[in-house]
């Protein structure tokens, strides 16, 4: 028989205002096994914990039930407290009488009654608890970063700086990400490439960092400290060790009609290409879908002109399998598709563009060499209209419910840069709200208005109608003056909402990292653990977790790196002891459990089974407790009831059911 102590927390008035804690104490005293019960205003406080410790010692408790907040909040606290007092931490159970009781019920009688039942269930469970020992698992001292944008680069640099090996997997042929597409950055207006390129070079030169570009994560198994990852290195068709990056192949390539992804399709590129001049690695890839050699077999110009003999049409995809202790997701974002926003004429007119396209047009290395011009007739525009919140803050299924956060600032930047370089151009911004929280952000926006005389109009645009003369009639509204506004623009720029990279769903599934309804990865805690996924060993960096600008992304990237370093610095990790265990006497080695195990933790071996009247060698299931994550799928699949889950055993669960239904 256990000697159980029950500790009922008031949580100030959070519990005590609704639940009659004294009555709970009084009633649980009568439960089997309970030898001690008391209440206290804050059990989690230093004083509260010392009362528990005191009772464990003086009452020689073998089990503890704390009636308090959710176990997700303080289970670990109370288990540590028990451990310090010499009690096995797994002899502690929590009855959640705050989130599941006092906070949702108003009637004291009902809430008290429910609190008692929840306590009874926990007591019934503790009566059957057995001491468990956490095992240990080793930590592979290497980290994987998925995504080679500024978030991934910064995280990798910081991890490498602490002396750990780190690999970056990047889907496109070069690292650099979205930031490499930007022209200038707010609020300082420094050139994006000037601050990014050194970081890219640093990442490629750092001997602790390995870059896998034009590669994708294909399979992930294992768990925190010991992940095994398959990386598919797509065939570049160019031998990286031979290529000198001279660029002749790209000049001579006869296939030049492929839309240039880096320039958002505003111009075309060759089939063998590097996305941009500062690409790292500076080794081109052959886009086999558009390559004449691969499509028809007749061409091979690049191979002929390559002095280094680096072109390799026979190259195959390669799978690299590596072990990692931690994985950082830094998959970034894209802009939403605008095909559902026909009223803004994005698909109908080449002069209606997105802000990212404008970014390319303004860039000296972009499709117009940095000259501001209309894509339809290459004339310089005279009247530019910016439309904010296209697809952000929407309650309908066309757009996204959230604010994309960066658009107000980059639009102010665009407006200012245009007015600065082309003072004759009129710039109008239609906004719903101008949101500029951030250091020097509002000052930046005010400069656009006060210094550069950008015309900000509060109101949304209803429709953009292309006119026969090539202008774009913008039908807007000025809500402050309360009149409709019609502007004859010759260029319209849409601040399209941003969304997580579409690949992130697939990656999150591989990592078993949770994702929200907008495809942003979920944090372990929205305030207190913002760079960790609830899945141990998975960390979040950049926009994959939520909209952010560059400074925020870099801060988060650093924070994620620190978390990774903290993990990799450990030699061993304690494992969850709540793992499955087979009762060899009942096991008949049927393999039903191994078939459902998602971790491959169950194997079979021949063991000598001894029991009264039985002595034989039999094939039985053996659980590798380092691999087992304790889901319990096997326990239900087992036809003979041999498989059980420690800490959530069949008997414990049934005891809880019985206590509730009593």
């Amino acid at each position, binding site marked *: 028989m256990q000697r159980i102590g029950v500790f009922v927390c008031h949580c100030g008035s959070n519990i005590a205002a609704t639940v009659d804690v004294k009555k709970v104490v009084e009633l649980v005293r009568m439960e089997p096994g309970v030898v001690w019960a008391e209440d206290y205003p804050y059990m989690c406080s230093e004083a509260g914990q010392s009362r528990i410790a005191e009772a464990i010692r003086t009452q020689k408790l073998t089990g503890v039930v704390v009636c308090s907040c959710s176990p997700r909040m303080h289970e670990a606290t109370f288990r540590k407290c028990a451990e310090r007092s010499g009690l096995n931490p797994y002899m502690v159970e929590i009855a959640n009488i705050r989130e599941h009781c006092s906070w949702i019920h108003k009637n004291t009688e009902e809430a008290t009654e429910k609190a008692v039942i929840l306590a009874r269930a926990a007591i019934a469970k503790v009566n059957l608890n057995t001491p468990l020992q956490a095992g240990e698992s080793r930590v592979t001292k290497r980290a994987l970063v998925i995504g080679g944008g500024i978030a991934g680069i910064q995280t990798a640099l910081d991890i490498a700086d602490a002396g750990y090996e780190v690999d970056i997997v990047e889907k496109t042929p070069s690292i650099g990400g979205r930031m490499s597409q930007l022209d200038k950055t707010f609020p300082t207006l420094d050139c994006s490439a000037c601050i990014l390129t050194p970081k890219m070079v640093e990442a490629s030169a750092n001997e602790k960092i390995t870059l896998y570009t034009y590669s994708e994560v294909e399979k992930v198994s294992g768990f925190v400290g010991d992940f095994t990852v398959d990386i598919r290195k797509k065939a570049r068709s160019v031998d990286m060790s031979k290529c000198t990056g001279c660029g002749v192949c790209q000049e001579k390539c006869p296939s030049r009609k492929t839309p240039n992804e880096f320039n958002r399709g505003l111009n075309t590129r060759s089939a063998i290409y590097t996305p941009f001049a500062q690409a790292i690695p500076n080794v081109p890839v052959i886009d086999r879908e558009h390559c004449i050699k691969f499509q028809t077999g007749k061409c091979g110009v690049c191979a002929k002109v390559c002095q280094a003999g680096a072109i390799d049409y026979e190259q195959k995809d390669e799978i690299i399998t590596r072990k990692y202790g931690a994985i950082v997701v830094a998959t970034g974002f894209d802009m939403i598709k605008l095909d559902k926003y*026909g009223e803004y*004429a994005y698909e*109908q007119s080449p002069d209606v563009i997105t802000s990212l396209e404008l970014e390319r047009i303004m860039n000296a290395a972009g499709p117009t060499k940095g000259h501001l011009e209309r894509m339809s007739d290459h004339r310089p525009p005279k009247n530019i209209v910016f439309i904010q919140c296209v697809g952000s803050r929407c309650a309908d299924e066309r757009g996204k419910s959230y604010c994309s956060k960066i658009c107000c600032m980059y639009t102010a930047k665009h407006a200012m840069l245009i007015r600065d370089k082309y003072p004759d151009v009129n710039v109008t911004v239609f906004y719903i709200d101008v949101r500029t929280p951030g250091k020097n952000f509002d000052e930046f926006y005010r400069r656009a208005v006060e210094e550069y005389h950008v015309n900000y109009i509060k109101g949304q645009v209803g*429709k953009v109608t292309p006119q*026969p003369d090539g202008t774009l009639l913008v039908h807007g509204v000025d809500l402050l003056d309360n009149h409709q506004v019609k502007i004859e623009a010759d260029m319209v720029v849409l601040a399209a909402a941003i969304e997580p990279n579409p690949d992130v769903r697939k990656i999150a599934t591989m990592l078993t990292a949770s994702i929200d309804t907008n495809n942003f990865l979920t944090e372990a805690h929205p305030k207190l653990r913002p760079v960790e996924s609830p899945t141990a060993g998975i960390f979040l960096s950049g926009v994959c977790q939520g909209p952010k600008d560059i400074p925020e992304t870099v801060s988060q990237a650093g924070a994620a790196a620190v978390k990774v370093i903290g993990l990799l610095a450990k030699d061993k990790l304690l494992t969850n002891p709540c793992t499955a265990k087979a009762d060899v006497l009942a096991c008949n080695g049927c393999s039903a459990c191994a078939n459902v195990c998602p971790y491959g933790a169950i194997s079979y071996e021949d063991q000598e089974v001894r029991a009264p009247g039985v002595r034989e060698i039999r094939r039985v299931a053996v659980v590798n407790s380092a691999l087992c994550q304790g889901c319990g799928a096997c326990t239900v699949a087992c036809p003979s009831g041999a498989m059980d889950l420690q800490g959530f055993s069949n008997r414990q669960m049934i005891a809880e059911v019985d206590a509730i239904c009593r």
Partner: protein
Amino acid sequence: MKYSYYPGCTLKNKAKDLDTCARASAQALGVELEELSDWQCCGGVYPLGSDEIATKLSSVRALAQAKEKGQALVTLCSACHHVIKRVNDDMKHVEDVRDKANRYLQLPEPYAGETQVLHFLEVLRDQVGFDTIREKVVKPFTGVKIGAYYGCLLLRPGKIMAFDDPENPKLMEDFIRAIGGEPVLYPYRNECCGGYSSLKEKELAGSMSKTILRNAEGFGAQMLITACPLCQYNLNQAPVDLPVHYFTELLAEALGVKEEVQGH
């Protein structure tokens, strides 16, 4: 292909061409339009009030009749299509409307939105197919620049009408291509012509129609086609010299059955 057909009041009177040309073309395309025996006026506008029942009943009668015959219900006039399609959606999804309407009508079998409501243009696109039409055209409108005027009622609200992309439709442009013409894309093709305001607010309707016609003309349209008698009326009232025809008139002409119709 046999369909129940709901012509609507205007098609029996001022918009006879819309109706007769459709029937002749349908016949030429092997589509049988079977006029409902005793249809009543749809009311012209969909009652937006969620508590309106009486004004929805005539549509329910037509829908239930088509259901009894086991046929989809085809309409021609944009307004009728709009009203009937939306009432059908209510009958399918709004329990309150369905209960009240059924209680009032006492139909042999309760109606719950089972009938498929199709606009004749949808029949042409999805059932007949524009490729088939292209093959059957004997007098193509080669080189004629035609603007499609959709108006509001066929497209909006997009979720319920599900006719085409409400902001950037292409069905009628595809139709124009099928009869050999050259479609003219102009942005005002889904803007309002003024609707029923032309009865009392002639100036308002006039200015709106004028904007549409001027814009279409600017993009080089030689004529416009529409599916709505009210749109045609409003556009024709505007002082712009751009003819507006029913799409079925052009279809009948392309298929070489226009004379037959006029012969009647």
